[in-house]
């Protein structure tokens, strides 16, 4: 029995739940969202990731109906959303501040949306009980928001926005207000709840670790545009631009010129330095300028010259000791800094290298990603 992989975006038969069609949003002269077209599928956990001001919150507020689209269309299950006000949309939102009504109890907060729909009383009671159970808040039903902890408040906000069983749940920095330790546990809890309820989640975050942990697909945004939308692994291993490579995780970028050789390209990056080699399915003209992106953990650091094509000599400039890992900043003769990371499987006192040591850096032909300049 092989489990089918959840990848509706690769299935031409799959119908998207949400379609952005050439959506542009302008505030006065400022373009917040610049002509974006993309789809989100049912049951997806879709993350919008980017620095503040990149337009991710605007994207979400357009879905919720708090901002009007300037140009283009947003479709939900094939229906144009433009004329539907926020209170009539089958979309609910979990706010960054949680926006819990301070004058209402936890129970009343969760029941708030159901009451607006004029649901019968016992149906409301059942649904709220179900939500309290899902979020493990049964004991706190009669408390007011200020009488519970930050983590509990976060769960109330989640329960409240899920109570109406929306087709789509929007989460605006849902874990931003929690401390680091709690955030990790909550990330898994969130994924768990998403799978249990089968709701489509769209999350906005500036925290890449959070996006990578929870999402089926991550959309990296910059300046009103989605730079790349793909699975966390692809975003990390196969970034499509220098921006994405640099934004996600740690990376060394080497600028050079490509020449086709065998399955890949040779990259000449500086006088007196050997050419580097990287395999790539992309096509580059001979002599075209390009960027080579290499993750520090894929760079080996040795005292002697290794027997590989990609080997560079340098001196250790800095060592960042992170406990489980150490990151070495190695300066080549050209002045270029290359980062290399090693796992600290040995005790510190037995470490091989120290400041000013001359070392060799090396990586395999498939380790680096070749990007257009």
């Amino acid at each position, binding site marked *: 029995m092989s489990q089918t992989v959840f990848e509706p975006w690769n299935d031409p038969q799959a119908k998207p739940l949400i379609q952005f069609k050439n959506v542009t949003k302008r505030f006065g002269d400022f373009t917040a969202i610049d002509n974006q077209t993309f789809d989100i599928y049912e049951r997806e956990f879709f993350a919008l990731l980017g620095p503040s001001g990149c337009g991710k919150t605007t994207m979400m507020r357009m879905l919720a109906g*708090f901002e009007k689209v300037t140009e283009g269309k947003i479709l939900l299950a094939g229906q144009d959303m433009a004329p539907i*006000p*926020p209170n009539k949309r089958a979309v609910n939102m979990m706010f960054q*501040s949680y926006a819990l009504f*301070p004058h209402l109890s936890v129970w009343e907060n969760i029941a*708030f*949306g159901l009451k*607006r729909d004029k649901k019968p009383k016992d149906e409301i009671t059942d649904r709220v009980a179900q939500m309290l159970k899902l979020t493990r808040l049964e004991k706190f039903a009669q408390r007011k928001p*200020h009488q*519970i902890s930050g983590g509990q408040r976060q769960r109330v906000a989640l329960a409240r926005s899920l109570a109406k069983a929306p087709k789509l749940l929007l989460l605006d920095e849902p874990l931003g207000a929690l401390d680091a330790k709690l955030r990790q546990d909550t990330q898994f809890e969130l994924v768990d709840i998403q799978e249990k309820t089968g709701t489509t989640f769209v999350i906005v975050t500036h925290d890449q670790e959070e996006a990578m942990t929870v999402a089926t697909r991550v959309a990296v945004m910059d300046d009103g545009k989605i730079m790349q939308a793909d699975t966390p692994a692809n975003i990390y291993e196969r970034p499509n631009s220098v921006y994405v490579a640099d934004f996600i995780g740690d990376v060394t970028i080497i600028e050079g010129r490509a020449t086709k050789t065998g399955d890949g390209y040779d990259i000449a990056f500086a006088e007196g330095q050997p050419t580097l080699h990287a395999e790539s399915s992309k096509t580059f003209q001979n002599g075209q300028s390009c960027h080579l992106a290499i993750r520090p953990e894929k760079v080996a650091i040795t005292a002697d010259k290794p027997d590989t094509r990609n080997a560079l000599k340098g001196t250790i400039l800095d060592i960042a000791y992170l406990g489980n890992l150490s990151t070495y900043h190695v300066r080549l003769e050209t002045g270029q800094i290359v980062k290399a990371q090693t796992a600290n499987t040995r005790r510190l006192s037995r470490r091989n290298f120290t400041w000013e040591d001359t070392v060799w850096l090396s990586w395999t032909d498939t380790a680096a990603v070749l990007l257009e300049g």
Partner: protein
Amino acid sequence: MRRVTWFNATSLTLGFAFLYLPMVILIIYSFNESKLVTVWAGFSTKWYGELLSNQSFLDAAWVTVKVAVMSSSIATVLGTMAALVLVRSGRFSGRTLFSGMIYAPLVMPEVITGLSLLLLFIGLNIDRGVMTIVLAHTTFSMCFVSVVVSSRLVSFDRSLEEAALDLGCSQMQAFFLVTLPIIAPAVISGWLLAFTLSLDDLVIASFTAGPSSTTLPIKIWSSIRLGLSPEINALSTLMIAVVTVGVITASLISKRGSLKRQADERAAET
């Protein structure tokens, strides 16, 4: 800035003595037997008896309370609306004039406000009475209400209203189910402020009152212009007592509320 020094202790003691001594003396001498207010002739509560059997004072008190309740209630509604406009409505044509009209009455000398309203009522041939005082008091106290309420609205988390809309409320429902209950303390203080301003006002009421609608301050004014009066001392004592009890109760309630809240919050985090 925590330094309890001789200088600080002295300035506080003298300062509060200055603020309270006149009122304390007033209260003590309200229990004076003598008709001569400044000469002590033994303890007596007779002036309270005289006051409470003086129909004209009771009538004036009733008119004052009526005016204050009506004007502060209308002013609270109008002032809250004005605050919503000031904080929420962004730009609209005539906004500058609007905010000018909200802030101007706060600094307008009462004699001018009173005079101008009187001239309006005469111009429109409106008989002066309780209604005209209510209109006048509403107009200036709604501005105070709107200042109090808008200072609360500025710090109001708009996402609470968006959450209400998101969960299916109409704009109206969102206001009455979420916004209003949360800003209620500010609205209530606005009402109390409007109520007190109305109770307290002499000048504007003098301009806009008719012969049949004498308010308490007008009544007090006409008797103290002739000099000291033991009945007014008794009346003052009663008024001070009511205010003191009210303010102390209110501050105890809010203190208990905030202590409970702090305790709840501490308990919630553990």
